[in-house]
């Protein structure tokens, strides 16, 4: 048995396990026995559960980061054009900081520095922070990608003709109303391809959450290969997993782009 050890885990048993494992467990077990290729996550119940949990954590992490980063971008692009100098300089500083420093350093900074400064509660004998590693990963990656999204949305906003905004003003729109109903919907269509790119990058960058022990796919793969010494196999799984996720994201974004196409425009 190539299984080294998992602290406290029961030995592998897929007889009573998930139905999926029953389906292909034998095949991968046999594959290992005959060729040495150890896809342990596909025949070992404990590793399988770990793998499935990692899929969900990764998807949740990605969705949270995407949404947060887009919100940061939308609000940031609006703030960049604000009348208040403080707000504009603040935005410029924010973008410089997050664009010019490595995202991995940012994650570590958020988790270990800011995490120590934020409130915690007594979780039965030890202090548990209100914001855990998952929360800090979302916050730091969201701000990181949000800095790029801000610039992407700004480029879209600049592509909206001044005269269109003027028409909105003439109809009594405030700056905010004009941004929400006219400028942003147009800008968004213009910058969708660039946004698409950045979100693909963000999706892949979520693997850095590994550095603060968020049990996402990268972290879990590392755990699995530490326990089972099957690095090449887990690498293959990692590549296929992320290729698949990016394909789904890109497909969705293209669908979205198409559905927003305006007849006779652009």
């Amino acid at each position: 048995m190539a299984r080294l050890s998992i602290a406290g885990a029961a030995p592998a048993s897929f007889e009573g396990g998930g139905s999926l494992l029953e389906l292909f467990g034998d095949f991968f077990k046999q594959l290992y026995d005959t060729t040495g290729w150890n896809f342990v996550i596909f025949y070992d119940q404990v590793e399988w559960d770990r793998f499935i949990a990692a899929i969900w954590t990764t998807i949740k992490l990605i969705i949270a980061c995407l949404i947060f980063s887009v919100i940061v971008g939308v609000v940031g692009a609006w703030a960049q054009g604000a009348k208040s100098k403080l707000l504009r300089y603040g935005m410029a500083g924010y973008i410089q900081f997050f664009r010019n420093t490595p995202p991995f350093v940012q994650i570590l900074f958020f988790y270990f520095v800011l995490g120590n400064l934020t409130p915690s509660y007594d979780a039965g004998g030890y202090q548990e922070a209100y914001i855990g590693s998952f929360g800090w990963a979302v916050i730091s990656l969201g701000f990181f990608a949000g800095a790029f999204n801000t610039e992407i949305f700004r480029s879209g906003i600049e592509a909206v003709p001044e005269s269109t905004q003027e028409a909105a003003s003439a109809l009594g729109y405030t700056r905010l109303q004009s941004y929400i109903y006219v400028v942003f919907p147009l800008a968004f269509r213009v910058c969708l391809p660039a946004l698409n790119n950045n979100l693909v990058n963000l999706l892949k960058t979520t693997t850095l959450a590994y550095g603060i022990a968020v049990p996402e796919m990268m972290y879990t793969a590392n755990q699995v290969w530490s326990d089972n010494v099957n690095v090449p196999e887990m690498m293959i799984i990692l590549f296929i997993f992320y290729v698949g996720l990016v394909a789904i994201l890109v497909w969705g974004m293209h669908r979205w782009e198409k559905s927003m196409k305006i007849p006779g425009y652009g």
Partner: protein
Amino acid sequence: MSDAKKTNGWTPRQPMVSIKDVHKSFGDLEVLKGVSLDVMKGECICIIGPSGSGKSTLIRCVNALNDIQKGSILVEGQEVNDPDLDKLELRKKVGMVFQQYNLFPHKTAIENIMMAPITVLKQDKDEVAEHAASLIRKVRLGGKENSYPGELSGGQQQRVAIARSLAMNPDVMLFDEVTAALDPETVKEVLVTIQDLAEEGMTCILVTHEMGFANEVANHIYFTDLGVIVEHGPPKTFFKKAKDPRTKEFLSQIL
């Protein structure tokens, strides 16, 4: 309450739009050098003049798209040259149509018309829809409700733009060279729409190069050159008995 327009003691006997000694510069370039004119309720006036004479700048000042450095613009008694100007209040009273239509390209014709009353005036959606439907018929675009601006011709887009502006129930309409970007055939359909409005008693201020049209619909014509009003008068006297040499020269080139 929100529908009641603030009038500051203004009555329809006073000019609806009163422009007095307006000065406006862009940097060092002074484009308006003391312009004064009055427009009474129900009047239609045309401002004509060579390019760069400040015509468009002048009417853009009326709804505060441009600010002015000196002088006074009263719209129904509300001072436009006021740092505390309530722009929303002003823009409820003043509608504007642009040379390049400036429709919202991501919205259909009917949505373009309905957006501002719903967003800005917070009117009831069903009432706005009804009003918009009547406006689109008024500008003779029944059947084009669900077309996007990019699917309409220039003349059709401009008529949607007029309807969009009318949806706000303005008291004054500003037309800034609204036919300048159109081909000769579609110019007419837009002019007919404006003429209908003028005949219904809408107060209109037009910047135009359509002399025949100005002659037909305007109560009063103003000729501007180099930032001042050179000459003005009712169309009959203006076109036939212009006195100023600059006016004569301009008219001889254009007529």
